C-alpha cells in the first residue's frame, strides 16, 4: 500500500460518509421534477391533472399567508441542513496509528484509555483514577492522586507524551495533564 492510498483510506475511516445526505438531497430534488414531468404530459394529452396542476399549486401556496411562510421556512431549514452536511468535516473521533504494513485506525475512546493507563501507572495509582478526554489535536488527562503521595505533573506529562510518540498518532495530539487538588485515601 503506498502512501497516497494509505492517507486516502485513513481519511475515509476518520470521516463520516456523505452518501446518505447526498441520496436524500437527490430524492428531494427528484420528486418535484417527476411530478412536473407527469403533470406536463397529462396536460399535453388533455387528460385531467393527477393531483393538481403545477400552476394551481403555486397559486395556492402564494395565496395563503400561512402556507407561504411555512413552505419558505421549510426550504430554509432544509437548505441550511444540507449546507452544513456538505461543508462540515464530519469527523468521527478516530485517529490513525503509524504502522509499516497496515492502516490502523482507532476510536478515540481507545486512545484515551491508553493515555489514562500511562498516566495512572506513572503516578502509581489505580487505573480508574485517571481520565482522559480526547479531541482531534489535544488530550486532557486528569489524575486523582492518593492522599499524602504527591504526583509530579511533569512525570505524567512525560509519560503521556511518550505514549503518544510510541503510537505515532495521526493527526498528532498534544497531551496536557492536570493533577486534581483533592486526593483519595488509598485502599
Amino acid at each position, binding site marked *: 500500500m503506498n502512501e497516497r492510498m494509505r492517507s486516502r483510506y485513513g481519511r475515509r475511516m476518520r470521516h463520516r460518509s456523505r452518501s446518505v445526505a447526498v441520496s436524500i438531497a437527490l430524492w428531494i430534488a427528484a420528486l418535484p421534477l417527476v411530478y412536473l414531468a407527469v403533470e406536463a404530459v397529462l396536460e399535453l394529452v388533455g387528460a385531467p391533472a393527477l393531483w393538481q396542476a403545477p400552476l394551481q399549486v403555486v397559486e395556492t401556496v402564494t395565496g395563503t399567508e400561512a402556507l407561504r411562510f411555512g413552505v419558505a421556512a421549510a426550504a430554509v431549514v432544509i437548505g441550511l441542513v444540507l449546507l452544513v452536511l456538505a461543508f462540515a468535516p464530519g469527523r468521527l473521533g478516530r485517529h490513525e496509528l503509524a504502522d509499516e504494513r497496515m492502516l490502523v485506525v482507532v476510536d478515540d475512546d481507545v486512545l484515551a484509555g491508553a493515555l489514562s493507563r500511562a498516566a495512572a501507572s506513572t503516578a502509581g495509582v489505580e487505573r480508574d483514577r485517571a481520565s482522559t478526554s480526547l479531541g482531534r489535536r489535544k488530550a486532557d488527562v486528569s489524575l486523582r492522586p492518593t492522599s*499524602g503521595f*504527591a504526583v509530579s505533573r511533569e512525570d505524567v506529562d512525560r509519560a503521556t507524551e511518550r505514549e503518544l510518540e510510541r503510537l505515532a498518532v495521526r493527526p498528532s495530539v498534544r497531551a496536557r495533564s492536570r493533577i*486534581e*487538588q483533592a486526593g483519595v485515601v*488509598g485502599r
Partner: protein
Amino acid sequence: MDGTSPAGRVSLSSRAIERTLGALAAEELGVPADTSGVRLHDAGGRLGVAVTAPVALGRGRTVLAAAEAAQRRVLADGPTLTGAQISTARIRVTGLHDAEPRRVR
C-alpha cells in the same frame, strides 16, 4: 514497558499506614499499639490523620501533654516511616490505660 521502571506496581495499603501511625501515637501515649484506632482522610491532596487511643496512667505528665506529644510524633515520624505527606493529626484520648497488671484475687 518503558524501560525506566520495573514492571508491576508498588502500592501501600491504607491499613498499613493506619497501623504504623497508630503504633507511633500509642508509643508516645504509653499504651499497646493495638489499643489505638486510626482513620485517614484526604486533606487537599495530603493525608489527614485522626487517632483515637487511651493514655497510660502515671508518667509524670498531664493527659494533654501526652496527647500533644503523640500528635507531634505522628507529624514528625509519620512521613519518614510511611512516605506520606501528613497535613493534620488529630489525637483523641478515649480513656485511661492501666499498665499495672491486675492482682488476682
